[in-house]
């Protein structure tokens, strides 16, 4: 506290914050939420089975696209250009790093983990525990500027996920198909509500009036963008629910609720 | 000998509101070194409170608009008591001043073809107010503040010093103007932060200190509005005119008590809001005065059509000039048809969809939501009159803004004449720009024409310092400045308020006399560093002096006109139209003696007079004055 609110010229107040509300609660919940997802996602990514329900065409997004010889028959919607993989490489290894990168560099998640994990700051007007701070001015955090590239890839992966969901529908309609569909819809909403997407679509323009279509696009994305945080959390939940459902059906614990078979 | 910081400048501008900043820009563009002194931080001046817009006949919304129409509206609004030359310059130059702001970076709301959008306002024939939602004043002040920064950047590039030609002395109060012989030599003041004294040695001083609202209990004005410029000018030997004309804005908040007086923009009515009494009746149709008969709709149906079709319908009387609306509300409340907290209802909720209200009046929505917990999209507002603006002020030359003391200039609310007996909404922002610029020019020309510079005598500095420190001297009764201020506000509000009568004004004058004695006994605790009690003690002298001008002028004017309503003389009197009441001060002491004398105004130039139809002029002028009008001669 010698530097920040304890600096010699400032009002002499020993407390690191005088906030009386439960300012520590949101970062705590964020930490718990993120940790739960990371644990679940890690286990499932390395699990290596129960990701494909051949009779209904359900493929969990954690394993899409599945492109190696190790993939279960039928789960490789785009062929198997890759050879068999050793067991310690997740079958979704092509998409997962990009999806992880997309979320890690996402402007919302950055806020969330800078506050909760890194405590920089934990909450507004609460002194942070670090002596020095350089933000995103230098390596490694300067890499956050690559968010748009992760967005491009995430966009492609969303197309693949959409294909997966539609393919499932060609096997008839079941609860799993609806879950896949809802999940992919929300994934689209999250992906398109991205700040980089908003910038690319129209935000970078100086004159909206000269680009009416892009302005319209920007306006729509701006409306979604306001909900970027909610979508970020909802899609974490739907990803887990989708994967869990596919896992349970694939491993025979439950059977899919069929509506039209 | 008093310890003071000395700062030599060419021009010192006192007040950093719209007029002051515009004067700074102009004087600096002429190459002069300018100091701008303000009581608040830079960019906080009361101009930010202006909401509705800035009147300028650009003709963007209605091509029929031009300076002549604007001139006519202004004279009508002021009941023909205006200084016609000021009104003429104002109407002619306002569009240029607004366009100039765009080159400084201002972003007004736009018309579909990309020009500056203009909105309707009380007393203006056509949509005329350039605006940015309902925060036009903020846009003006920020734009000029940023222009000053950009000029400072130019100076930095040229001389390596941002403050080479313009320096802002923020949170600094001027308490005395200092003269060398009969001309201005400088200004003496103190830093609010440290209490240290500061002397500006400058041959020209521009006063742009705004109004006097803090002399009244219910006011939309901030603490800064203590009539400093008015009082400084009086004490320096200049004169004030029209001080009896104080505008009570018809729509101020009335509840809760802590925000009583805060303004509700006229834009609410311009955008469709209507006034209703407790019976739910739109009462304004019954208060159209004779002079405006024929120009306003006499039934709600026509008034409602006017919002969409202004060519074929007459405007709603909700948009009558402010003095008329304020009096009407006052009458309704007195007749027992007021709202629960002593105002009337202003209803926009039933007139526009909620989204539209939020879009057009964002800061009003915000203000009521956060200050009164009222959702204006769902329920009507409660409003009542609040002291808003003083039409009176320092008597100046219209073209140069020069006061009668050489080297002294004034612009904006603290100058007088432009608005006559009543100001139209939207005309103050344009007034700031037009006469702020002219004051800057006038001061620059004056300084450049000087053959020798005046000098400040040490004895004057010592005297000014002594007077400023007087509240720290122990006295027998140790009067509290807050108590005195309260009593002054109460007296002015109750006795020299919207409706006046002789005996009440006399009571007020007695009260002011008593305060005059007690003010010598004011003492403050603590030391000079950021001491609000001391600051108030000094401001109080100005408020007292100015209040006395208002009261004495109000007593003399035995008619009702614009912002001066006499219960005992309810009619407008043509014999009074051409008479200005001029205040001057004499004698020493903390608050000098006030004298008020009548003075005849120069007759309007013939070509301007001919812009009006004879029947209209006959409502205001005496027959003798109209003898030369072509309508009579032909």
């Amino acid at each position, binding site marked *: 506290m010698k530097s920040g609110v304890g600096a010699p010229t400032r009002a002499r*107040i020993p407390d690191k914050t*005088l906030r009386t509300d439960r300012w520590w609660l949101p970062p705590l919940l964020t930490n718990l939420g993120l940790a739960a997802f990371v644990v679940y996602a890690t286990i499932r990514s390395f699990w290596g089975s129960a990701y494909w329900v051949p009779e209904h065409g359900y493929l969990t997004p954690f394993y899409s696209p599945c492109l190696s010889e190790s993939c279960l028959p039928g789960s490789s919607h785009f062929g198997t250009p890759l050879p068999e993989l050793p067991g310690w490489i997740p079958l979704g290894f092509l998409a997962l790093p990009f999806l992880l990168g997309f979320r890690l560099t996402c402007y919302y998640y950055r806020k969330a983990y800078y506050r909760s994990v890194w405590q920089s700051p934990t909450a507004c007007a609460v002194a942070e525990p670090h002596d020095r701070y350089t933000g*995103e001015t230098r390596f490694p955090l300067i890499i956050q*500027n690559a968010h748009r590239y992760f967005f491009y890839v995430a966009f492609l992966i969303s197309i693949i996920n959409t294909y997966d969901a539609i393919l499932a529908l060609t096997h008839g309609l079941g609860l799993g198909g609806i879950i896949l569909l809802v999940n992919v819809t929300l994934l689209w909403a999250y992906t398109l509500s991205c700040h980089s997407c908003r*910038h690319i679509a129209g935000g970078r323009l*100086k004159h909206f009036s000269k680009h009416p279509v892009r302005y319209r696009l920007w306006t729509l994305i701006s409306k979604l963008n306001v909900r970027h945080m909610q979508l970020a959390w909802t899609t974490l939940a739907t990803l887990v629910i989708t994967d869990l459902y596919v896992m349970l059906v694939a491993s025979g614990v439950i059977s899919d609720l069929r509506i039209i078979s | 000998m008093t310890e003071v910081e000395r700062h030599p400048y060419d021009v010192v501008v006192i007040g950093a509101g719209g007029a002051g900043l515009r004067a700074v820009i102009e004087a600096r563009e002429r190459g002069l070194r300018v100091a701008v002194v303000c009581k608040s931080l830079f960019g906080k001046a009361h101009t930010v409170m202006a909401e509705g817009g800035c009147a300028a006949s650009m003709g963007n919304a209605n091509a029929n608009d031009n300076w002549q129409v604007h001139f006519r509206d202004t004279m009508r609004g002021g009941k023909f008591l205006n200084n016609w030359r000021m009104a003429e310059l104002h109407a002619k130059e306002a569009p240029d001043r607004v366009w100039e702001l765009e080159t400084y970076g201002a972003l007004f709301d736009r018309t579909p073809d990309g020009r500056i959008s203009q909105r309707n306002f009380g007393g203006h024939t056509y949509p005329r107010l350039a605006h940015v939602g309902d925060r036009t004043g903020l846009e003006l002040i920020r734009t000029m503040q940023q222009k000053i920064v950009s000029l400072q950047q130019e100076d930095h590039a040229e001389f390596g010093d941002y403050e080479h030609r313009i320096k802002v002395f923020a949170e600094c109060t001027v308490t005395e103007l200092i003269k060398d012989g009969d001309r201005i030599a400088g200004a003496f003041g103190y830093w609010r932060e440290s209490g240290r004294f500061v002397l500006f040695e400058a041959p020209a001083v521009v006063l742009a200190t705004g109004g006097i609202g803090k002399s009244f209990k219910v006011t939309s004005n901030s603490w800064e509005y203590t009539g400093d410029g008015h009082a400084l000018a009086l004490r320096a030997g200049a004169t004030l005119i029209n001080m009896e004309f104080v505008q009570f804005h018809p729509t101020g908040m009335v509840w809760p008590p802590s925000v009583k007086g805060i303004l509700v923009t006229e834009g609410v009515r311009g955008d469709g809001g209507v006034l209703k009494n407790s019976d739910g009746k739109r009462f304004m149709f019954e208060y159209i005065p004779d002079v405006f008969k024929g120009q306003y709709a006499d039934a709600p149906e026509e008034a409602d059509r006017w919002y969409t079709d202004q060519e074929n319908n007459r405007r709603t009387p909700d948009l009558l000039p402010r003095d008329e609306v304020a009096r009407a509300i006052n009458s309704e409340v007195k007749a027992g048809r007021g709202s629960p907290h002593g105002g009337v209802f202003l209803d926009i909720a039933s007139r526009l969809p909620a989204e539209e209200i939020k879009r057009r009046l964002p800061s009003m929505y915000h203000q009521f939501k956060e200050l*009164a917990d009222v959702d204006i999209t769902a329920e009507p507002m409660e409003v009542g009159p609040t002291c808003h603006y003083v039409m009176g002020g320092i008597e100046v030359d219209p073209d140069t803004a020069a006061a009668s003391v050489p080297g002294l200039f004034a612009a904006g609310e603290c100058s007088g004449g432009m608005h006559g007996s009543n100001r139209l909404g939207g005309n103050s922002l344009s007034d700031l720009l037009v006469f702020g610029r002219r004051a800057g020019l006038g001061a620059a020309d004056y300084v450049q024409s000087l053959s020798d510079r005046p000098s400040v005598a040490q004895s004057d500095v010592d005297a000014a310092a002594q007077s400023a420190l007087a509240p720290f001297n122990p006295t027998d009764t140790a009067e509290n400045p807050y108590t005195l201020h309260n009593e002054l506000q109460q007296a002015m509000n109750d006795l020299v308020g919207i409706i006046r009568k002789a005996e009440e004004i006399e009571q007020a004058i007695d009260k002011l006399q008593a305060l005059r004695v007690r003010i010598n006994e004011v003492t403050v605790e603590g030391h000079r560093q950021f001491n609000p009690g001391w600051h108030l003690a000094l401001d109080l002298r100005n408020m007292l002096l100015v209040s006395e001008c208002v009261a004495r002028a109000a007593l003399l004017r035995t008619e009702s006109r614009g912002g001066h309503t006499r219960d005992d003389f309810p009619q407008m009197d043509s014999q009074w139209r051409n008479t200005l009441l001029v205040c001057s001060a004499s004698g020493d002491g903390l608050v000098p003696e006030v004298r008020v004398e009548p003075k005849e105004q120069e007759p309007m130039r013939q070509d301007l007079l001919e812009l009006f139809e004879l029947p209209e002029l006959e409502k205001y002028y005496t027959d003798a004055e109209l003898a030369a009008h072509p309508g009579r001669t032909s």
Partner: protein
Amino acid sequence: MAYTAKFKVWRGDAESGGLHDFDVEVNEGEVVLDIIHRLQATQAPDLAVRWNCKAGKCGSCSAEINGRPRLLCMTRMSTFTEDEVVTVTPMRTFPVIRDLVTDVSFNYTKAREIPSFTPPKDLQPGEYRMQQVDVERSQEFRKCIECFLCQNTCHVVRDHEENKEAFAGPRYLMRIAELEMHPLDTADRVRPAQDEHGLGFCNITKCCTEVCPEHIKITDNALIPMKERVADRKYDPIVWLGNKLFRR
């Protein structure tokens, strides 16, 4: 309706100071600034506080109430329970002058460092044509009342005095965004935003947006779009490659 509230108000100057306890009357509909004024009029006549319009339009009365950066005039007493202790301190990022008044000159210094509006040379006054959709983005930022609460709450300078030199703060990074989005401005401030005004320090934790009394979406609408523009210019290899290939 009136009750007696318990207040703790920080009093002191650059050398020393502390929280002082007051019991003070509160009436219906009042805001914290009313209570501070009542303290001045009745118990502490030399209590220093900066204020002006008392309607949330001038941004003078910035302070911290129960540790949260707020405008004194826009914090209604009804947001507290009657037995709650209300703590009022000066803003903790700027040097204190006395009591609730701080030295905010940092902000004026930073304001001067941002290159001003640069109008097109070929347009005369009165010839400016702009579409409403094109001015709206900048208009949002021009709602700013310069209360400096965002500057105060931003941890980059609040918690790190040494960053004040290199960081303009949310208010002035937003000013850059405002000018960049101004339809007629001709200057380019994108690289300087990162290299000179410290946009990279911002880790978009949104405290500036949280405290803004004008509800300006500083982070989403100004800072992130500026970061994206900087990425366009500095960190996008495709743009970089394009420049390499086609400009030489």
